[in-house]
């Protein structure tokens, strides 16, 4: 909401320093979003009078004017259409520097010849002076402006604040409202604008007594009307135009400008009807009938529902209550008699109607937040007073005031001083608390040493409870005066209950393994969501109101997101990638997965040592780099029963894919990304990817760490080599050896695999080194040889291999 400094200063004394005022407002909870400092008009701009206007001999659009500056007569060439004789206008005298607001360019006014005619200065438009946006011609100054005086003696530069008003404080949506809060903050006196209303002739007044009928008092708790006859609709005086222009409104005519002015002055929306257009000279406040139509003053026709409240005359709706006037009932140049509406509407109804009809206005904005019940009358009085002053006419009715009889008064609040102190944590005394309430316009009574009774005025709809009073005390007392106590670091639960600890540890492990963490959006399009072949459309959690079809589904896996990350990096020539992501993924099919679970994706691709040179530079990540990384991660987590098994998976190349087992459970898959996913990526390197069921992994119990004593005796090494079928996998061999439990065997390590035609087709030669050691003594050759021989023969018979 825009607030003008000059305007605000009418109602209370405000700090001269703009910054100081902005800080006061900010610290009172009225956030200053922007300050538009008014332009300072240079002294060289003076008030001049055009004495004579002649056409330029050589240019159609230019005029040659004789201008009185108060001390001399000058010849000025002017291009504006409205530089007529008799007009008073701002003149930039020679030597004045003007600055263009948009470009920041400065020009100095010099004596110049325009198409051969000498000109000694420049007549200015409002925009050239940075006062208003009007550039249709030179600015016309009031007839009584004194010629020769600097313009800044009559036009004061203004500053406009753009304020953010929180939804609980509709009472601040006006200059008066802001002034009222400032007076509470600073203890200054408030000045309500002068209102002068002459007495109404009794006979006239009686005629209009019953012209307002409210059929739905629930939706319209108060409706007031006043009738003024014989007015003259015309342009508003400068001061009024200046006020409403200062906050960005466009002047229309005196009557409309007055209603807009009062809206911004007192925060109460008004509406002026042309009495001649009200059939039966009646106002009926009713709900629309279903399907009833009306055209609003913006020229749009609306089809109404029975929940929409309208202001109608005897025949048809003439306004959408509290939202917008009708096309044909408003004030025009021809209007002579008017009816001024000042009402209160039920906020939720205005909000719903405004939303349904897609119309939002300054008035609906205030009505849907709640206006001051009592202000309805004051605003009407203020309007009539101004109309009589600026448009003439005669008031012919008293305030026609239709109120809901059962209006609820806000309940008084019992305020315990100790509760306020406890809430704020500060030693503010009773006296000071009461003082703050009074400054805020709250009525305080029944004060005793423990508590007081507080009655809340009609404009503070947000204060209902003790806690709300606490907030007011904090606001006015000053949050900066609340002490910051030493930190209380009370431990009320154990770290074992911490929900983040496991995930945090897992992330740190992946980082320690050399991976960079990624983060992708949680939503995706349908095609990407099901691209991994693991989910169908029915498994997806679909949004009802996505931003676009590109983000219509919650991701069922991190797969497509991290694929995008790989693709984006490769397109930017970042080919060497070591990445991981953890995040929540979603599934609608409860038979498959819980609705929300955590997943982890790991990516390896590109060169292992791009920083090195020669052959080392060309080493690239392969299947066993990914496997080794996963093995180290599982080892990090101290899991038991871990392993890998061959798998087929549409996400990975056939034959280059495995499943990961830990704690005896499936926890994920990895492999070389299948060709249909890497197609089009400009990289020569394969992409290795792992998808881990993170919740399953994090749920596994880790092994207790128990120290094993170290043997101080020497170890003895033996080898075993044999030819086996290709189908016999390494893990089967190791498992067989371990299960055979050769005496004193400490370690088995694969050291060679060898294939050639001498060995035979579908055969391989495998060689393992065995380490024997005893914890209590030095082994003899004999016992090692015995164990070795025994194992050899077990291998030969148990695995049907040919020993070498």
């Amino acid at each position, binding site marked *: 909401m825009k607030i003008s400094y000059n305007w605000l200063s009418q109602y209370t004394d405000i700090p001269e320093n703009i910054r100081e005022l902005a800080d006061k407002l900010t610290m009172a*909870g009225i956030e200053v979003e922007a300050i538009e400092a008014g332009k300072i008009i240079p002294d060289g701009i003076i008030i001049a009078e055009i004495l004579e206007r002649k056409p330029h001999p050589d240019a159609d659009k230019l005029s040659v004017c004789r201008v009185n500056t108060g001390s001399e007569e000058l010849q000025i060439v002017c291009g504006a259409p409205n530089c007529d004789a008799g007009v008073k206008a701002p003149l930039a005298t020679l030597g004045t520097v003007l600055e263009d607001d948009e470009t920041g360019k400065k020009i100095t006014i010099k004596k110049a010849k325009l198409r051969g005619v000498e000109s000694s200065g420049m007549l200015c438009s409002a925009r050239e002076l940075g006062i208003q946006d009007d550039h249709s011609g030179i600015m016309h100054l009031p007839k009584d402006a004194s010629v020769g005086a600097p313009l800044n003696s009559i036009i004061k530069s203004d500053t406009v604040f753009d304020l953010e008003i929180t939804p609980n404080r509709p009472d601040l949506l006006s200059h008066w409202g802001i002034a009222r809060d400032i007076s509470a903050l600073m203890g200054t006196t408030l000045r309500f604008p002068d209102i002068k209303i002459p007495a109404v002739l009794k006979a006239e007044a009686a005629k209009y007594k019953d012209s307002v009928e409210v059929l739905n008092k629930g939706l319209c708790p108060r409706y007031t009307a006043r009738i003024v006859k014989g007015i003259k609709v015309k342009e508003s005086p400068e001061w009024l135009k200046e006020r409403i222009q200062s906050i960005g409104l466009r002047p229309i005519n005196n009557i409309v400008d007055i209603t807009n002015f009062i809206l911004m002055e007192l925060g109460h929306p008004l509406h002026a009807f042309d009495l001649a257009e009200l059939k039966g000279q009646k106002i009926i406040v009713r709900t629309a009938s279903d399907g009833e139509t009306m055209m609003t003053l913006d020229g749009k026709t609306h089809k109404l529902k029975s929940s929409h409240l309208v202001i109608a005359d005897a025949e048809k709706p003439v306004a959408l209550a509290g939202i917008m006037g009708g096309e044909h009932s408003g004030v025009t140049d021809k209007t002579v008699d008017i009816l001024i509406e000042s009402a209160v509407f039920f906020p939720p109804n205005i909000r719903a109607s405004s939303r349904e009809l897609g119309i939002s206005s300054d008035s609906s904005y205030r009505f849907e937040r709640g206006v001051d019940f009592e202000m309805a009358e004051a605003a009407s009085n203020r309007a009539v007073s101004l109309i009589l002053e600026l448009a003439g006419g005669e008031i012919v009715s008293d305030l026609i005031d239709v109120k809901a009889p059962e209006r609820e008064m806000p309940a008084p609040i019992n305020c315990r001083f100790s509760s306020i102190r406890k809430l704020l944590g500060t030693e503010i005394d009773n006296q000071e608390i009461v003082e703050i309430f009074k400054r805020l316009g709250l009525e305080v009574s029944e004060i005793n040493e423990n508590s007081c009774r507080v009655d809340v005025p009609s404009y503070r709809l947000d204060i209902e409870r003790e806690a709300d009073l606490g907030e007011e005390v904090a606001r006015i007392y000053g949050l900066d005066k609340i002490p910051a106590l030493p930190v209380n670091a009370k431990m009320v639960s154990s770290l074992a209950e911490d929900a*983040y600890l496991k995930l945090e540890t897992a992330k740190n492990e992946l980082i320690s393994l050399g991976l960079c963490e990624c983060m992708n959006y949680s939503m995706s399009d349908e095609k990407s969501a099901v691209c991994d072949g693991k989910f169908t459309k029915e498994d997806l959690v679909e949004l009802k109101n*996505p931003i676009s079809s590109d983000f219509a589904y919650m991701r069922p896996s991190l797969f497509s997101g991290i694929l995008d990350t790989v693709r984006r990096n490769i397109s930017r020539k970042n080919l060497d990638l070591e990445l991981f992501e953890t995040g929540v993924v979603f599934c609608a099919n409860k038979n498959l997965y819980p609705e929300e679970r955590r997943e982890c994706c790991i990516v390896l691709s590109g060169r292992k040592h791009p920083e090195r040179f020669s052959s080392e530079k060309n080493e690239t990540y392969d299947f066993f780099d990914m496997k080794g990384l996963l093995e180290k991660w599982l080892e990090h987590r101290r899991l038991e029963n871990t392993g890998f098994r061959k798998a087929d998976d549409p996400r990975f190349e056939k034959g280059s894919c495995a499943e990961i087992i830990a704690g005896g459970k499936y926890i994920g898959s990895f492999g070389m990304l299948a060709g249909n996913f890497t197609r089009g990526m400009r990289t020569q390197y394969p992409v290795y990817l792992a998808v881990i069921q993170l919740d399953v992994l994090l749920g596994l119990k880790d092994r207790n760490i128990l120290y094993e004593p170290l043997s101080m005796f020497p170890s003895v090494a033996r080898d075993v080599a044999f030819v086996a079928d290709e189908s016999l996998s390494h893990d089967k061999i190791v498992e067989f050896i371990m299960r055979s439990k050769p005496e004193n065997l400490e370690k088995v390590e694969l050291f060679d695999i060898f294939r050639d035609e001498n060995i035979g087709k579908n055969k391989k030669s495998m060689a393992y080194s065995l380490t024997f050691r005893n914890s209590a003594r030095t082994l003899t050759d004999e016992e090692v040889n015995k164990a070795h021989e025994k194992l050899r023969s077990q291998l030969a018979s148990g695995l049907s291999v040919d020993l070498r």
Partner: protein
Amino acid sequence: MPNPIIEKISSALEISRQKLREAKTENDIEAVRVDLFGRKGLMPALSKEMSAVPSEEKREVGNALNNAKNEIQTLIDEAKAAISSVSSSASDEIDVTLPGRTWKLGKKHPVTMVIDDCVSIFRRMGFIVAEGPEIETVYHNFDALNTPPEHPSRDPQDTFYFPDGRLLRTQTSPVQIRVMESRKPPIRIVAPGRVYRRDTPDATHGMNFHQIEGLYVDRNVSLSDLKSILLAFAHEMLGPSVGVRLRPHFFPFTEPSVEYDFSCIMCGGKGCRVCKNSGWLEISGAGMVDPNVFKTVGLDPETWSGYAFGMGIERIAMIRYRINDIRLLFENDVRFLKQF
């Protein structure tokens, strides 16, 4: 008394070890090899002497000889390898400025860095982490948080809904409700997590971003406690010179509600472009738990009091690392990620 051959073997071993350690060229190594294994070397000579060894000692001497041969051969191989790696560079010295072989260094995402820092700061002050689902009920996200039915944040313009009426949480605050429903005070938790707003992504908005929520419920908790925890957090996070300012504000689930600012770390509060000349950086909102919220979760507001606070993780990351576009955080360009 061991066989004299064994003594010869061990003294030859000792000398060879010494020579190989000091060997600088291939020739030095070759000299050692010839001394031991050459036609006129020590080893062939000792082998010949074996015939003279008494049969009961043959096995022991034979083993010693074999072990020595094996050891020397290994030492020679190692010495050669050491020399060849050095001599592959033109001079005797390596070029120490050649690139080192990288040990891969992983990086935390900046959002995680901020979350982890926040969590560890609050853990130090006795908080533990709690969590809640990202698909939430309207009840937990709005109703129980005292949000009036007409509050604009409920609008489908701003909040993502599902056909069954649930929504994507717009804030981490529903975790407050879930925690108060499930355990008895005193409660001291923080809840970091992902939240969603229906904003079209631009430099300062995303469809999803992260928040961390804090909640402390106990007897006699005051606004002053809130101020002190925020001040302590600011000092731990950004340094001891950072100031905290509270401004009155409005949130449905706290009363009083405040917004809090940290003094600008760029200019030290004097005013600069980053803080729009105010000297303060707007961080987020906080307040004292509204009595209606306590009533909703079945706690007596006369007995229990509490504060709650929230903050935007991306906002802090952007201030801390001077990131000017929030979308960079979700692009995952490794050149960006590796800067952290």
